[in-house]
């Protein structure tokens, strides 16, 4: 009890302190500096309508590469920790016909929608990560409905690796063509899609990278799910 009381008191003080700090960053005020630059230039510089996407993939592409890496680490780490010589799903009950059939119907749609999300990343909110997560949800549903279902591991692992390499390669091509790592050579060197701003085939390498990320995230999250749902079985 004392611990709880102490915790509450301490947290209130900490909270007050944080609030005091935040008071110096008034809510709702325009404090943009670099942000405004992005808004002003995003369309002609990157071909993206969605400034967030442009920031994520273009201006702060390094963060995103890191972000992809973080997820890759998680997938790898989960795989490493839950690695057993032999693993199997040990679920006790199969999903009812309602769930299995519902899943059958939903999976293609969910996957398509995932693809929709990452391919439209430069135009709408979304992008590779939500798209990938959506695709992974499709696999999650399969796992939930069918107790014997497993993703094609080898294919998925290779996709993961290839997609990651693809991202870095796109960056390296930028280095070779434009002189900078992660340089958007499609937009800035080839000027591909400059007349299309606001339409699907624009945005430089954003759709390419988001497709890569979508595939990567989808396979990674599915891999994580697979690892977590299976248990060791003795040989």
């Amino acid at each position, binding site marked *: 009890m004392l611990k709880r009381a102490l915790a509450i008191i301490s947290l209130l*003080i900490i909270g*007050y302190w944080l609030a005091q*700090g935040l008071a110096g960053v008034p809510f709702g005020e325009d404090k943009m500096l670099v942000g405004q630059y992005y808004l002003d230039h995003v369309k002609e510089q990157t071909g993206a309508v969605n400034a967030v996407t442009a920031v994520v993939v273009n201006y702060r592409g390094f963060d995103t590469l890191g972000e992809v890496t973080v997820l890759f680490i998680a997938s790898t780490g989960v795989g490493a920790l839950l690695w057993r010589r032999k693993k199997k799903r040990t679920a006790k009950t199969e999903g009812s016909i309602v769930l299995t059939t519902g899943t059958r119907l939903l999976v293609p749609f969910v996957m398509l929608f995932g693809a929709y999300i990452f391919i439209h990343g430069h135009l709408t909110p979304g992008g590779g990560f939500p798209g990938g997560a959506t695709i992974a949800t499709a696999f999650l549903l399969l796992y939930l409905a069918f107790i014997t279902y497993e993703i094609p591991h080898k294919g998925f692992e290779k996709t993961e690796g290839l997609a990651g390499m693809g991202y870095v390669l796109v960056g390296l091509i930028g280095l070779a063509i434009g002189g900078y790592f992660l340089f958007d050579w499609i937009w800035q060197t080839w000027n591909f899609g400059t007349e299309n701003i606001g339409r699907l085939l624009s945005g430089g390498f954003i759709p390419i990278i988001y497709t890569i990320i979508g595939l990567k995230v989808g396979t990674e999250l599915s891999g994580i799910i697979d690892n977590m749902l299976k248990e060791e079985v003795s040989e």
Partner: protein
Amino acid sequence: MINELLIILLAPLIAGVIAWALDIKGVREIIGLIGAAIPLAYLAKLYSTVLNEAVNYSVTVSGFTLQFQLNSMSWYFAAVASLVGLAMAFGMASTSKSSYDWLFALMSYTGVLGVFLSQDFVGFFLFWEMMTFASFMMVVRRNRHESLKYFVLSVVGAYAMLIAIGILYAKTGALDFATIRQALYVDSSIGAISTAETAIIFGLFLTAFGVKAGAVPLHVWAPGAYSETDQSYTTFFSGALSKAGAYGFLLLYILMGYKLYAALGTFHGHLTFAYIMAWLGAITVVVAGFLAVLQEDIRKLFAYSSVSQVGYILLAFGLGTSLGFAGGLFHVLSHAVFKGLFWLVTAAIILQTGKTQFKDMGGLAEKMPFTFAMGLIAVLSLSGIPPMAGFASKWLIYEAAISAHMPLVAGAIFLGSGIAFAYVVRFLYAVWFGQRPSDLEDVKEAPLPLLIGMAILAIPNLLFGVAPGIVTEYLNKMLGGEIVGGDYYKLVTPTGTYNALLVTIALTIGLAIAGLVYLYGAKVRKISITNTYQSGNPVTEEFNLSIRKNFYRPLAEALEFWLKYSWDRFYERLAGIAEDFADSLRQAMYNGNVQSYSWYLAIVLLILALWGVL
């Protein structure tokens, strides 16, 4: 051309490394001897130079400029060290079978020389550490407990010094002696460095040098460390290494004398800081002397004796007069040669008999006559019997104490001499005379290298005993004034005169008569080993005193009220408390519960918050 100082400094270390790397019996001894001899040779070569102008060398290492200088004072200390170092090397050629010993013995040799030659605190500290480390390595091989004690106290001392250096650096912006000295001199009238700060610096240095010199109560490492290593090495350890502490005290005068005077003032007409040193010395002389008397182990006895004798040097420096300095400096030399000699003799005894306890010895004079002769010289010198070097230096110190109007301190010197006599007598009798235990019948004379080593140290005992003026003349030049008058054979101080030659002649005549009596007088009576004395107590198994066993037990009983307080035990209890504290802290802090750890984070946040909010 390679600077001579560099050769002097590095020759032992390089020789040690080579000897260690080659590790071929015979070769390593020769290389070691060469390495030990080179500094002495170069110092001899530079003898005439240094009195006129200093030899300098400086090198920049890691952004620090290390300055070395061979001037009259550093030459003196270095010469003493290398004399002992050479003797040590000869001794080790007999007693040590290990390249490990050679490496670290010679490394500590370099360390000591570096300490003496450094003209800046980085070099000083570096070599100080090297010297400490190497000597520690010599001890750790043989005894974990004693080496740990030595190590901890040394590290404490070194770090105290480091802090003092750092404070000086922060205050003066310099690390070299010349600038610091100048800055402190200037500051003694400005007072930018406060009294408290000055006192802290002084205290820290006092601790650092006190540890190395073995001043009570920082002496507790010395008996163990001196005993628990190769005894030839102890020659150097006690003869030269402990002088680094004495040198440090002198350095204190040189660098911050004015400042200390200005900041701390005087006490009963004496410089306060010097007064502290003098009393530290006096207490060391007496306390360590008493402890030496009570030892049953030959090594322990001399270990405490060393501590006691270095106390004289401190005491002398603490007098704060030029005569005091002269006496102290002379004692640096004489203690080095007689105590070094003692340790070589001890090395020889232990090497040939394998015994260390008085109770296991006796009657060795016949078996090891040359060693006995050497031991006798050492005994005479140590107990301050003319015409040995030991007498000259003690006489000077005594005179200095009287003329400095510190009768109590002088009394300590007197008392110390009496005590010293008590323990050397025991050494003389218990080891050399009396009935020989049966297992010592086959004991042979010490091997030649060891004997050479003893000779190297015995000669100066006699030489500077008979002609103490050689030393005082040098000291006069060094200290820049006619401090001790007289000629080669005669020392004149404001309060007295000592004519060594006269005494020698008288003594020779006396000895001749005694010899005649011995030859033609009554038959020598063999003293039975069971010839005990009881001081009025009944003989029992436990209370069975002889010259070889518990000889001074009545004294111990008399001092019991005092002996039950032991610095050693005090430190050990302190260490125990610290360890227990560390344990509890560790168990409590790192209790394994991640929630506790999260709380630590929360508490830090809370502190940050409070600090921000308040």
